[in-house]
C-alpha cells in the first residue's frame, strides 16, 4: 500500500570543495519527495561505498565541477566489489565530452551537464532509482 521512498546519496569525491550544485540538486530531490543523504565534499571512495550500503540508497549522485570525475571509475569498481553494482550512479557538473564516454563505459548511468533542468534531473533519478530498486533484496527474502 505504502510505496517505498527513494533514497539518494548526493556527494562529492576527490579534491574540489564547491558544493553549490550538489546543494541545489539535493533540494530539488527533497522537494520531489525523495530522502537525500547529503555529505560535504571530499569523500573518500571507501566512505561513499560504506555510506551507500548503510543508507540503503537507490541512487548515488556525484557532483564534479573540477576534475574529480577522473576517479569515478575507481568508485564504480569499489561499488561492484562491495555487492552494490545495482545502485545507479549519476554524475552532475562539468565533464568534458571526451571523458563522458569513459564514465559511461565504467557504468555511470547518466551525466548531467550544467544546463540540465530540474525536471530532467528529477525524472531521470526517479526512473533510474526505481529500476535499481528492483535488484535489491525484496521483502520476500526477509520472510524466509
Amino acid at each position, binding site marked *: 500500500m505504502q510505496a517505498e521512498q527513494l533514497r539518494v546519496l548526493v556527494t562529492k569525491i576527490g579534491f*574540489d*570543495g564547491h558544493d553549490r550544485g550538489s546543494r541545489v540538486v539535493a533540494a530539488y530531490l527533497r522537494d520531489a519527495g525523495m530522502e537525500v543523504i547529503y555529505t560535504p565534499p*571530499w569523500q573518500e571512495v571507501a566512505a561513499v561505498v560504506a555510506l551507500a550500503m548503510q543508507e540503503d540508497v537507490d541512487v548515488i549522485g556525484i557532483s564534479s565541477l*573540477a*576534475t*574529480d570525475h*577522473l*576517479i569515478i571509475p575507481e568508485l564504480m569498481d569499489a561499488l561492484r566489489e562491495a555487492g552494490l553494482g545495482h545502485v545507479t550512479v549519476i554524475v552532475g557538473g*562539468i565533464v568534458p565530452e571526451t571523458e563522458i564516454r569513459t564514465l559511461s563505459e565504467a557504468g555511470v548511468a547518466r551525466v548531467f551537464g550544467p544546463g540540465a533542468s530540474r525536471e530532467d534531473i528529477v525524472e531521470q533519478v526517479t526512473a533510474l532509482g526505481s529500476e535499481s530498486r528492483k535488484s535489491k533484496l525484496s521483502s520476500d527474502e526477509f520472510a524466509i
Partner: protein
Amino acid sequence: MTQVQFKTPNDPQEQLMLPGFDEAQADWRRDYDGQIGKDRRITNRSGIEIAPIYTPQDWNADRHMADLGFPGQAPYTRGIYPTMHRGRTWSQRQLIGLGTPADYNKRVRNILELGASAISLLPCNSGFRGIDCDESPLALLGTCGTVVNTVDHMDQALDQVPLDEISTAMNDPSPFTLFAFLLGVAKRRGIPWTKITGTSNQSDYISHYVANHMFYRLSQPGSRRVLVDHVAFCRANVPNWNPVSVVGQHMQQAGATPAETMGFALSTAIQYAEDCMARGMDPDTILPRFTFFFDISISFFEEVAKFRAGRRIWARIAKERLGAKDPRSWRFKFHGQTSGVDLTAQQPLNNIARVAVQATAGIFSGLQSMHTDAYDEAISCPTEEAARIAVATQNILREEAHLCDVIDPLGGSYYVETLTNQMEEDILKVMDQIDAAGGMYEAVGSGLVQTMIGQSALAAQEKIEDGTEKIVGVNCYREDDGTVEQPLPYRPDAGAMKAHVKAFRKFKRERSQQEVDTAISELRRASDNEEINVFEKVVDAASVGVTHGEIISTLREELGFGHPLMVA
C-alpha cells in the same frame, strides 16, 4: 551649482515651447504603460526592483558631494586614488595553476611576455585539501592547479621570474605554506623580503568555511589564530605584502547575491581587523594592507553599483568604526575576477563575449587588479590558446576601447547613482544581520550565513529554470550540441607527473631529518603558546624542507582539525 535645471534653453520663447517635467513624465508614463503595461517587473540579482527609467527625481546633482565627491577623497565612491586608471591602469594578474612546477613556469613566463603585469599561483586541489602529492590519486594531480609541496617546487615554479620586480599573489589558504615557500625562495636568491610584493589571496578562512568547506584544513579557532599571526609577521618582516584578502568571490560563487556578497565581505574584513586590534595592533598599521577579492558577474550595472557602494561603506567603517586615521587605511583596494559561474560549457566560445562584458564592468568599477577567465574555464583548466585570449581581452579593453579616458565614467547616471544608493542600503542591512549574530565569525559558526547563501542559490537557480534569467545556449538559443565543438580539456602529462611524485619521495628521503624534526617540534611549541608567532615557525619549517602536508598535519593536531559546519 545648487539647483538642478530641467530646462536649459535661454531663449524664453523656446522655453515656453518645452513641456514641464511633470507633464512630460505623465505623457511618457501613458505611452509606456500603453505599450508595455504596468505589470512588467524586473529585479536584479540582489532582488532590487529596476524601474524602466531614472530621472532627477531618483537622484540629482544636489547630492554630488554627499554621494560622490572626487576620486581619492571621501566618500570614495568614484575611486580610491585621485588619478585612477588615467594614471595607472589595473594590474593584469592571471590566476594560473596547472601541472608540475615546470609546467607552471612555462605558462607563467609565456603570460608575462603577452603583457600580464603580475602573477598568481593556484595550487593543486590536493594542496587545498592539505595533503602532499605522494598521498593523492595520480589521476587528479595537477589537473586543477600546480603541485607545489616544498620550497624546491616553488623555486622551480618561479624559475627566472624576477621576484623583486613583479607582484606575486599566492592562492594560499591558512597556514600560508605557499607564501612561506616564496619567502624561502627569496632568501635563497638573496632578495630581501622588503622587496617582495603581492597578496595572500586566500587568507579569508571564513569564506572558505562558508563556500568551500575548507574544513579539511584547520579548525575555525585555529585558522583565526594563524591569520592574526600571519598579519603580525608580515607587518614586521614583509611590509609590502598584503596578508589579508577578503574573498567575496567565494560567497558569490556559492550563491550569495551581489549585495549579500559585499555585506559578507565587509563584515568579514571588520572581523579580521577587530581580531588584529584585539591583539594590540594599531588599525593604521594593518588596514593599508587589507585587500578584497571579488567575482565580477555579468549583471553589469549591479556589479558597478556593488563596488561603488562597497568602496563607500568601507571608507566609512575604517574611519568611524575601526578608528583608522590614515587615508590609506580607508581605501578599498580590490582584485576582480570575471565570474566563472556565468560561463557556460555549451557553445564555449561565447564565453569570450561574456568575459569582455564582465571585465568592462570591473573597469568601470575602478578595480586595482584583474583576472579575466579563459573561455574554456567552464570545461577545464585553461588551454594555452584560451589563456592567451583572456589576456588579449584585457589588452583590447585597455588599449583600444578608450574605457580608461575618464574616471568613474558612469558616475552621475541617474540609474547608477540610484542603484548604488539602493545597493548600499541592502549591503548595510546584511551587515546589520551579521552584527546582530555577533559578527562574521559567529554568524558562520551558527550557520546563518550558509543558510542565507543556500536560499539565494536556490532562488537564482529557479530564475534560470523558469526562464526569468536567460543564459544563451543553456535556456535559450540552444543549438544542437553536436554542432559546437568543445576544446580538448587540459590534462597534465602523466609521465611527467609520475616523475614529479617520484622526485618528491626521493627528496623526502634525502633531506636532513634532524632539521625537519626540529622545525616540526618548534611548530608544535608555537601552537601551544600564544606568545610565539606560529606563522614565523611555518616560514622556518618551509625553508628547511618541511612539506606542505607535514606543516598542515602538525598544525591540525595542535590547533584542531576543521569540521564541517552547517551543511544541509
